[in-house]
């Protein structure tokens, strides 16, 4: 993308009153997730990526390798990855269910996270955190999830 094309593509997204996460798809398959409006700064002629969680990717962005700007909820899932839209939809459905039904989030590293009460799991965008009293909280995202299971039934999987 040229700088002008990139500017046009992202300017409106960054100025939305209610920001929606989007992804910069680079040639070669790399993804840069923009999860908050202040993570991509337009400082003509520069574009600056500023991420708190992964400072290794911070710095001036060259828009030329950017092939597409895609809203996160429309991003095609990668092989072996639970789709973001399914992750969000399924978690929301389970957390709002009345009566609540305990469920298990299985991670690809073999960890099984049991959500026994709705108020133990918070989620935002592609990230979620499980709070368990007396134990460290666990943060995970859709790309780390292998399956979500309730009552022994696999509801969705990577």
């Amino acid at each position: 993308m040229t700088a002008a094309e990139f500017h046009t593509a992202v300017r409106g997204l960054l100025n939305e009153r209610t920001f929606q996460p989007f992804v910069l798809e680079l040639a070669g398959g790399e993804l840069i997730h923009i999860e908050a409006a202040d993570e991509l700064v337009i400082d003509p002629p520069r574009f600056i990526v500023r991420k708190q969680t992964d400072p290794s990717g911070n710095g001036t962005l060259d828009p030329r390798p950017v092939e597409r700007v895609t809203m996160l909820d429309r991003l095609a899932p990668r092989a072996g990855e639970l789709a973001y839209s399914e992750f969000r939809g399924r978690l929301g459905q389970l957390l709002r269910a009345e009566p609540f039904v305990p469920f298990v989030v299985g991670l690809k590293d073999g960890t099984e996270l049991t959500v026994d009460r709705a108020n133990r799991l918070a989620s935002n965008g592609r990230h979620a955190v499980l709070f368990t009293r007396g134990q460290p909280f666990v943060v995970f995202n859709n790309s780390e999830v292998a399956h979500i299971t309730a009552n022994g039934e696999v509801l969705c999987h990577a």
Partner: protein
Amino acid sequence: MREDVLADALYAYSHQTPFRPFTVELVNRVRLVAHPEVFRIESGVVGYIAPNGTVRMFDPSAVARLVSVALAADEP
């Protein structure tokens, strides 16, 4: 804010019809953009996950007020 007051306020804002995003303002003036799923209150501790996956835990007394997004944008 007391824990029960905060819980009631979060419930009320989370169940607006139609739903509108809101912010939770802390006493240090930090504003956390909120949706129903981003806050959890358990045993006197508020847990919050930001869009980038960072987690904050704080006492309910750190919350000053909840404000709808439109109002927040109109106020200094």
